[in-house]
């Protein structure tokens, strides 16, 4: 099968997977929503220009897109399970090497190109379009839009390519992964002494759009991407795995929590899916590390900002993605033949989520201990718990058991952003006035409880369209 045919088939498949769920218009409007948010966000930049130079804002934007690349890459290439992706065995083209004369390597390479094109169209281009439209209103040259697009695309692809390589190495050997991470960290820290530009070539390109930084950026994208294609291994499901019954002892131990059978199933899903540890590293700890780096840069420019509290707020938002892990390998069709309500399944997921939140709490404790922020630990903890619960409640209300799919609907995404962003910004600004105001975030528990109650009822009445 020629690569172009494979590519267009994958593009069509990706489009249809989403458009089947919430209609072609709903999905097609997603980039428009991104553009509108970018436009509106950029109009506010002059408000911060006294405290935050544009160059620093540019670094933050590039890091944000690098992070987006990391998250897209970790989502799509979760170690040996990259073929399963978020639709389990339904990604039929990804399995084409079983029935068609197409190699796994060719499929993976095409898959990577498809993800690149797809997500650049979905995120990067709309953001750059919003930037270009807003530029005249904030005294910037609209011509910078093209430069911003190229720089942001390079940053996004650097994240995507890096995580593809790391997850491919992880699929081969954890030691290989650990060794590579150590080497990359040493190289990165050494380069950091020279400033941000050598570590982040897209930033250097933005400052000086010359062939040098562009070539360096492309090398940092193409080399890891090519290496990941060469090193890719595919563990097809026909490798039989046998396990003794661990479900019963686990369910017995969890009995006092209620929903024991659902929690035990979630735990085994997470442990036995081969991205298990990879999920934690690539989808959670890695983005969290990037957030920490961004915040360390930011606090130099905004006086009064409390690093630990802002980190706790963002940790709360990121920890809500744990719910995505819990639903990634599950769908209600498993339960449709059993006497179970959707709300019972959601309850089980919420309890699993609460247990898994021990991980971000541990991260917060470590962050407080290492950053000297012990004094604001309690308000930070309150902010984390409240934001985590609230963001989760918004996710459950809007997406039910399908967050990995539904958040790509323009309408759903818009409501998600509108429901979370103002609250988070308000919380961060309040904590600048006095870190103790972060305790007020506990009020978010009320709308969280209300949204969860409504979500349980709402999703009971929902049917997967066309199934």
């Amino acid at each position, binding site marked *: 099968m020629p690569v172009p045919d494979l590519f267009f088939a994958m593009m069509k498949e990706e489009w249809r997977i989403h458009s089947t769920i919430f209609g072609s218009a709903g999905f097609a409007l997603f980039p428009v929503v991104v553009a509108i948010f970018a436009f509106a966000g950029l109009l506010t930049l002059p408000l911060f220009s006294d405290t935050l130079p544009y160059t620093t804002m540019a670094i933050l934007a590039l890091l944000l897109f690098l992070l987006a690349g990391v998250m897209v890459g970790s989502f799509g290439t979760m170690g040996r399970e990259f073929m399963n992706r978020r639709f389990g065995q339904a990604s039929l083209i990804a399995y084409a090497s079983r029935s068609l004369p197409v190699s796994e390597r060719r499929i993976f390479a095409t898959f990577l190109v498809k993800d690149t094109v797809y997500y650049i169209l979905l995120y990067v281009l709309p953001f750059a379009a919003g930037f270009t439209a807003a530029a005249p209103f904030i005294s910037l040259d609209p011509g910078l839009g093209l430069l911003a697009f190229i720089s942001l695309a390079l940053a996004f692809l650097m994240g995507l390519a890096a995580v593809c390589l790391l997850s491919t190495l992880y699929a081969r050997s954890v030691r290989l992964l650990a060794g590579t991470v150590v080497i990359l960290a040493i190289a990165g820290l050494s380069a950091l002494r020279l400033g941000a530009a050598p570590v982040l070539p897209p930033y250097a390109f933005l400052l000086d759009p010359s062939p040098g930084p562009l070539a360096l950026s492309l090398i940092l994208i193409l080399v890891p991407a090519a290496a990941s294609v060469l090193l890719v291994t595919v563990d097809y499901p026909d490798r039989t795995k046998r396990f003794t019954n661990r479900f019963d002892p686990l*369910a017995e131990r969890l009995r006092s929590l209620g929903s024991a059978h659902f929690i035990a199933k979630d735990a*085994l899903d997470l442990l036995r899916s081969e991205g298990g540890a990879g999920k934690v590293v690539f989808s959670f700890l890695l983005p969290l590390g990037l957030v920490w780096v961004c915040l360390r840069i930011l606090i130099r420019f905004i006086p009064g900002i409390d690093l630990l509290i802002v980190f706790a707020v963002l940790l709360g938002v990121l920890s809500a993605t744990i719910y995505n892990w819990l639903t990634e*390998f599950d769908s209600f069709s498993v339960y449709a033949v059993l006497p179970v309500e959707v709300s019972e399944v959601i309850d089980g997921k919420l309890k699993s989520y609460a247990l898994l939140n021990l991980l971000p709490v541990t991260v917060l404790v470590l962050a407080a201990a290492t950053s000297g922020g012990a004094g604001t630990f309690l308000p930070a903890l309150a902010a984390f718990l409240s934001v985590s619960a609230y963001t989760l409640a918004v996710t459950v209300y809007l997406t039910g058991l399908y967050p990995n799919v539904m958040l790509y609907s323009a309408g759903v995404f818009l409501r998600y952003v509108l429901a979370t962003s103002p609250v988070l910004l308000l919380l961060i600004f309040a904590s600048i006035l006095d870190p103790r105001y972060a305790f007020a975030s506990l009020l978010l528990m009320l709308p969280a409880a209300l949204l969860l109650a409504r979500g349980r009822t709402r999703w009971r009445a929902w049917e997967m369209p066309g199934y």
Partner: protein
Amino acid sequence: MIEANDLTKEYGSVTAVNGVSFSVAEGELFGLLGPNGSGKTTTIRMLTGQVRPTSGSARVMGLDVAKDPVGVRRLVGIIPEQETPPSFLTAEEYLHFVAGIRNLDSVDERCDRWFDLLEFRDKRDVLCKDLSRGTRQKLMFAQAFLHEPRLALIDEPLINLDPIVQRTVKDFLQGYVRDGGTIFLSTHILDIAEEICDRVGVLHNGRLLYCGQTEELAGSGCSLEDSFLDLVRGDAGA
């Protein structure tokens, strides 16, 4: 056991099931026949509360399906067309999961019975995602009958099963009905219906073209296949 009244299901502009009415009595083995896409699976999903009818109603074992779908699923056994056990539980763990949700006791004995009857004891510790489709179908049979329901609704019962297990399953279903159970199955394999069903319904383009005794449909000197094809082709030409 089952009463369907004017059941209709529309998916957008497509009418999958169009005003279907029938009833199934206790102790019957009823077969819903029809070509691919005729509405058989949608009918079973409406009868088990998995999808809501656009109009019409159904009662299963005395319960209104629209009002108490979970109650219906508590009483009956269901085998869906596409076997969907959870990927990362083993076959044995899945049956224990089902038993836990259904609050069953003597779970090991119940599981052993099915491992032996359908001959897949050697696969009990294999993850469901690694099972063959045939073994997954056996597993779905086991989960549907684990709580010994009085009524089972089965979508394409013998799909993916080898001839030996097919014989075992047919014998089991006939024995189950002899012992007072009721089976509602859908299939497009007419030989199965002719061999084991007391009554059949023929569905085409979402409409019920026939509902009655299997022997009557087969008619004098005609096979069930001939009569079925006459009905469906006649409807398509109409």
